[in-house]
């Protein structure tokens, strides 16, 4: 295969990564933006979404699309419920102090991971894609499902953007993010908003996971790498900025796809992590974010 088609393939793969990553990072960024909570357990919500997707899709027989659609609807809902309960039981009682919540979410990470290992097992299990059509390009065939993932992610992002900027719910969320105390004084139930945002963030991660399981398998340790990558995305995009998150996800997804096709993946990860740490050291507001208030 010549260099051009090779690069096209890497770009397509990178876009799939970017699609999943932007959804997940959006969840992380919302939670940080509104609640000022660094959710270390975010990767486990992603993993839980994938594991539940396997469970829902094998529960029903028949055409794979039926099970997949069921998983796509139910799995984010269940994960959102888990996150909601965790927020009410633990995070809300900690008064959202950044250090205490980080420790608590680390605890949550271990609990979810261990429960997945105990009940789901250490095996990686596949979920069948809802359709297996391949688009035949002149140089190689490409899975239509992967293109559908990119489209679904884009739709979801537009949906979230619409909710955030054009609806009452979004207005309440932004008001809480902007000034918690004033929002409360205006009668906004800040506690409920926080719980809702935390659940929404987890649901976004779960949705991303359901999209990815037909491509990667569901495994109890799968949350680790996406968590680091979405941290990277959120930081480069500027903590709490939606547009920055999308741009950074595409940037990171593409460069991850292209770099890991041509270089050793460990080296690529090493350099990426180091560069992002340096960005955070020298430009804490991110490449696209506004200066901290």
């Amino acid at each position: 295969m010549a260099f051009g088609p090779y690069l096209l393939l890497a770009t397509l793969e990178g876009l799939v990564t970017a699609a999943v990553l932007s959804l997940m990072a959006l969840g992380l960024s919302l939670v940080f933006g509104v609640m000022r909570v660094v959710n270390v357990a975010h990767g486990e919500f992603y993993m839980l979404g994938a594991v539940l997707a396997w469970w829902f899709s094998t529960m029903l027989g028949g055409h794979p699309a039926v099970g997949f659609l069921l998983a796509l609807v139910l799995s984010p809902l269940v994960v959102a419920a888990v996150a909601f309960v965790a927020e009410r039981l633990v995070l809300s009682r900690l008064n959202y102090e950044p250090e205490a919540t980080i420790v608590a979410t680390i605890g949550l990470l271990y609990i979810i991971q261990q429960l997945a290992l105990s009940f789901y097992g250490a095996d990686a299990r596949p979920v069948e894609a809802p359709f297996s059509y391949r688009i035949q390009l002149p140089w190689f065939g490409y899975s239509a499902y992967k293109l559908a993932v990119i489209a679904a992610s884009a739709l979801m992002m537009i949906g979230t953007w619409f909710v955030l900027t054009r609806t009452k719910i979004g207005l309440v969320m932004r008001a809480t993010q902007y000034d918690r105390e004033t929002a409360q004084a205006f009668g906004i139930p800040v506690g409920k908003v926080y719980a809702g945002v935390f659940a929404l963030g987890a649901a976004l991660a779960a949705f991303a996971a359901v999209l990815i399981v037909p491509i990667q398998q569901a495994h109890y340790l799968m949350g680790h790498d996406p968590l680091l990558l979405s941290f990277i995305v959120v930081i480069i995009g500027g903590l709490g900025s939606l547009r920055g998150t999308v741009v950074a996800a595409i940037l990171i997804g593409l460069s991850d796809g292209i770099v890991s096709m041509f270089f050793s993946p460990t080296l690529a990860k090493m350099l990426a992590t180091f560069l992002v740490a340096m960005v955070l050291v020298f430009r804490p507001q991110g490449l696209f974010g506004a200066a901290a208030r």
Partner: protein
Amino acid sequence: MISLLPRGKTLVLHIGIVLALLALNFILPEYHRGVFSRVLVLAVFAMGYNIAFGYTGLLSLGHAMFFAAGLYGAGLTIYHLDWGVWPAFAMGLAAGLALALLVGALALRTTGVAFMIVTLMFAQVFYLTTLYFTTYTRGEEGLVLRQQARVLAFPGGALDLSDPSTRYLVALTLFTLVLGAVLFLVRAPFGRSLVAIKENEERMRMLGYDVFANKLLSVALSGLVCAASGAAYAVLFGYVGSGFAAIQYSILPLLWVLLGGAATTLGPLIGTLLMFYVIDLASSHTTAHLLVVGLVLIGLILYFPKGIVGTIRERWAPWLP
């Protein structure tokens, strides 16, 4: 005016604990003596972490890299260059100190959440580096140091560090030295200025203290102690693997210190010891020991944010250092 050297109840308590630990060497059954040796070495790691987290208020999520720097600094020089234990141990200390100065100088430009993430990421880079140079480190599988290489040479003779009793006593010696140093530190003006920075950084800056320099020194000292623990681990237990650089080993000292009590001299030991036995007990009943770690973390932060020794100090014994 408080004297720099501990006196009265404090001195009696700390000497008593060291003597009790010494006596345990002759009382404990073989298995538990092994556990205690490990706990003593890792309690040093926790004490090092406590200098940055407990006293200075710097919540780092990357201290595994300092432990691992000591571990690899000592382990690689013994394994590949056939160095003796003394120079290898010194190499471990030097590696940890250099890394801590470098990481501190960069990461301390940030504060709060950003500091946690930056330290996490630097530690991740370190971990990936140990995997990348797998030809030398053998990655997750790790290196096993030969027994003949783990001999502590003295002018008058030599100590075989793989012997259980010697190992315990050497671990206790290191622990006692570090405990003494920390006890001295918390009374020294430097230690007090660290606590003051934790309490109110702005006020310290206004009073004319160089906050950045003090924090950097705190991270350097913390890294040095953690590296001492890592280097001791390598020579005492003869195993060096990249698992010790993974994120879990950055979380564990935080857990130990929180459980025992942040900013207390004895908290790290109590926390490490208790956590070891909780996991030991849990894994004899269930394989789900991570669940226990998770539940303990959440329970602690919800109900005992001050830890065991911290709570004792608050309720009954305000003199505890």
